[in-house]
């Protein structure tokens, strides 16, 4: 299957997950917010968050078990760059109240002005970063 089709199917599954989370638990399926809550919320709010996170890890493991084509190549960033990037992603999504799923999918689906602005902002910052990265490293 062409990777555009797989991308649309994968995106659709993310949408199904977001609908499940809203219809069943009344929550936005925002990964950064839910992950953060695993460490910061009180006892009664922790377990469902942990299970959602665990579900993503399990779900991510499944497609490559069925078809090796779903296993992506090694990220090109080294460990040090991955740590810097991870810190920025955590800090940024924490301060900005959301990431690609919470703002980019769930927020825009609700036509939230904050989410539309946040998505345009992180997309623009990402485009500038990759453009500069590739200009400087040639990769």
């Amino acid at each position: 299957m062409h990777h555009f089709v797989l991308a649309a199917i994968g995106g659709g599954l993310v949408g199904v997950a977001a609908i499940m989370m809203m219809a069943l638990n009344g929550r936005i399926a925002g990964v950064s917010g839910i992950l953060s809550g695993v460490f910061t919320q009180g006892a009664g709010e922790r377990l469902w968050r942990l299970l959602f996170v665990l579900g993503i890890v399990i779900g991510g493991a499944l497609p490559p078990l069925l078809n090796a084509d779903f296993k992506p190549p090694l990220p090109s960033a080294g460990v040090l760059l991955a740590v810097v990037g991870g810190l920025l992603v955590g800090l940024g999504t924490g301060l900005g109240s959301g990431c690609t799923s919470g703002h980019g999918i769930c927020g825009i689906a609700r036509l939230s002005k904050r989410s539309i602005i946040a998505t345009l902002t992180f997309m623009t910052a990402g485009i500038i970063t990759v453009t500069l990265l590739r200009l400087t490293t040639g990769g």
Partner: protein
Amino acid sequence: MGKLLAALASGIVFGIGMAVSGMTNTKRVQDFLDFFGAWDPTLAFVMGGGLLVTTLGYRFVLRNPAPLFAGSFSLPTKTDIDKSLLIGATLFGIGWGLVGYCPGPALAGLTYGYAPTLAFIPAMIAGLLLAQKIAPKI
């Protein structure tokens, strides 16, 4: 119990979506962000598929008085475009571009056993905790 199983099931579907869509492939994500270079539009299809399904689904779901396993819908209430939102989204975009991971795909890729992924996740959690500390000061 229903609430816990629902969270697990939603997470599993989410994770499968990540792996199927190509979001776990950091090169493909960076190629999508390489708008002025070797642009790869694949992730626009992920976003399009996700938005189409979620926008339609939310219309139906939010017509109900309450979700199945909770007393009410917990929807974000903030509406102002504040400094935290803009600074946060900018920092997130920089980190996303540097590595090619946002939070969901990094978690979905945990079991692939790649060192950069295993380094990214704890750093991201540290960043989320740091944000809690400094958010009141912005």
